[in-house]
């Protein structure tokens, strides 16, 4: 059974995933309140009371707001991120909500673990992962509402502002300089998911009021080398792929997405080649106008 939420509140609406999620929710004719950091600084002293005034008990709240790793991986950043979550949880404990979806990260898993399911113990290796794990626990401690924690793998899309290593950086780099630089030979395997698919799955989760923990991944892992080859093959200009001396050990990451399949057996993720083609197209459109 599916239920369109009365309203979806997006906190951190103007990041990478937020705009795509907003677009797809609008296509569902779902009422939305999109809140960005410019409209509400969740670390500000009065942010809790402001948020309380904005929220309704019938809202589905999607918490995307976070200072991403490119803005800092230190203790100060962790504290600010936790403070944001504290604001949200405090506000929700006063207003209540119909559903809370927390966007976490695969950084909660130990990098050395190559086969990951939702039952894999969370063992973050850095402060960024520790931050997300702490925020997950804060979300899950909310009483009276179903809470869903989403742990996305590497997300790609032309609007990625962090220039993450992988399809995002490769596509931009191929377009801008005709060159893709790999760490080592690009032997590591990773699961890459298109932002459109992340948003589509989130919409499904909202409609079904899913709770618990869900890894958001395709179940198909590809080497960075193969990703670079895909990007180069689809580029409109010649692309040189440069391999560099390896500094770090090769690690792999594969997701067993059985839980996702069981939740949505009819959901189809975009193939990486198709996603990269779409990204190329969008990047080219951006530069033309």
């Amino acid at each position, binding site marked *: 059974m599916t239920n369109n939420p009365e309203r979806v509140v997006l906190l951190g609406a103007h990041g990478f995933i937020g705009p795509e999620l907003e677009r797809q929710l609008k296509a569902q004719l779902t009422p939305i309140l999109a809140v960005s950091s410019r409209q509400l600084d969740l670390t500000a002293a009065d942010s809790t009371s402001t948020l309380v005034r904005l929220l309704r008990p019938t809202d589905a709240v999607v918490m995307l707001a976070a200072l991403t790793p490119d803005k800092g991986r230190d203790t100060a950043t962790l504290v600010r991120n936790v403070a944001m979550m504290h604001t949200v949880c405090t506000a929700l404990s006063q207003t209540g909500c119909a559903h809370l979806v927390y966007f976490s990260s695969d950084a909660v898993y130990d990098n050395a673990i190559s086969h990951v*399911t939702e*039952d894999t113990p969370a063992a973050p290796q850095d402060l960024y992962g520790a931050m997300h794990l702490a925020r997950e626990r804060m979300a899950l401690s909310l009483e009276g509402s179903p809470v869903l924690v989403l742990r996305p793998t590497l997300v790609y899309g032309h609007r990625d502002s962090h220039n993450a290593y992988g399809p995002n950086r490769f596509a931009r780099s191929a377009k801008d300089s005709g060159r893709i630089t790999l760490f080592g030979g690009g032997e590591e395997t990773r699961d890459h998911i298109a932002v459109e698919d992340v948003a589509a799955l989130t919409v499904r989760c909202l409609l079904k009021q899913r709770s618990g923990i869900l890894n958001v991944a395709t*179940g198909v892992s590809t080497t960075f080398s193969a990703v670079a080859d895909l990007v180069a093959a689809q580029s409109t200009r010649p692309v040189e792929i440069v391999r560099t001396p390896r500094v770090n050990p090769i690690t792999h990451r594969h997701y*067993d997405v*059985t839980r996702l*399949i*069981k939740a949505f*057996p*009819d959901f*189809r*993720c975009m193939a990486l080649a198709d996603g990269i083609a779409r990204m190329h197209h969008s990047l080219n459109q951006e530069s033309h106008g």
Partner: protein
Amino acid sequence: MQPVMGFMGMTHLGLVSGVSAAEKGFQVVCFDPDPARIAPMRQGEMPVSEPQLDTLVATNAPRIRFTADAADLQACDVVYVAPDVATDDQGGSDLGQINTLLELALEVARLDAVVVVLSQVPPGFTRGKQRVGRTLYYQVETLIFGRAVERALYPERTIVGCAKPEEPLPSAYATFLAAHNCPILPMRYESAELAKISINMCLVASVSVANTMAEICEHIGADWSEIVPALKLDRRIGPYSYLTPGLGIAGGNLERDLATVCRYADQYGTDAGVVRAWIANSQHRRDWVLGVLYRDLLSTHAKPVIAVLGLAYKQDTHSIKNSPSIALLEHLQPFQVRAFDPVVPATAVAHPHCYGAATELDACAGADAVVIMTPWSQFAQLDPLQLAAQLRGKLVLDPYAVLNSAACRSAGLRYRTLGVQS
């Protein structure tokens, strides 16, 4: 003079054991406290399905008395207490019925009769039930669904739990056991009770190796079926080692024993990490069909139709407890399904779009994929060319390798099985 044998609890274990004892030439009293269970059995209608069972009941009818009157057990020299022990979803045993029947046995059997607990019980159970003036033993059962009669008639060995293992077994009991022509291994109660669990742990370890290595084969181009003969010729592994990959551990008894070992480890502080890994591997492997089906069909087709052959948890049984087929169907709710099983009716499936096919080929008619979820021997007779003609799509998922892979590929089918890359 041959001892008269009694068997209490006319569920799977007790019934098969009693009928097999009659086949060995013994007079047998088959008791169950429920008259409603006994009545049809007196008419030759057995509540369980096992190869040879119906034939043996008919053949040995003059030697078998089905009764709900506990006083009839007074005629018995040996009384086996043998109800099936139900397990819950957490692998815990429900000892209610064995407790009840054992109390009854100790109350009504002759004082010189031997009472034997045959049902699987936790270590410590039998010792806790001893009574002054009563001779009580524990005997390990090795029932296998689908081979229960064979296992009862021709055991590999008999493991007997005793209060005093160094003492000879009572004459009536020894006579009965000797009729099975296999080694008899007396030991203390707890060793016998744990022996059954230990047997199952060895089987699980072997299966887990097979599943783990088969999964690697599926990715690196090796074929596990080519490797297995080499392993079985290694004396340390042996020709009867259980190395066939499967869809996880199903049926309840193995899962119960895994849970029991974990519980003991937690209670006594011993390490059971490897046991928990086996459990996780079993759960992982159970989803192989769904994963391949998703990869090769569900992720690419908007409205696929899926044929499912086999609903029982294993062949030659009616049981669907912990059936991988039923578990798969729970995750195919959005899709059209056409199901067939030689014994289990499609009405046993809770699915909004399930068609109950009359035959295997009927199930495959117009389907985009066929999944063989229970390795019934009759499925091996299916002609791949006929399958290909019936199917709309050409995907065949055959985790148990019931069909000939070369014949399937020659027929133009996309054939997928455990242990080999697809």
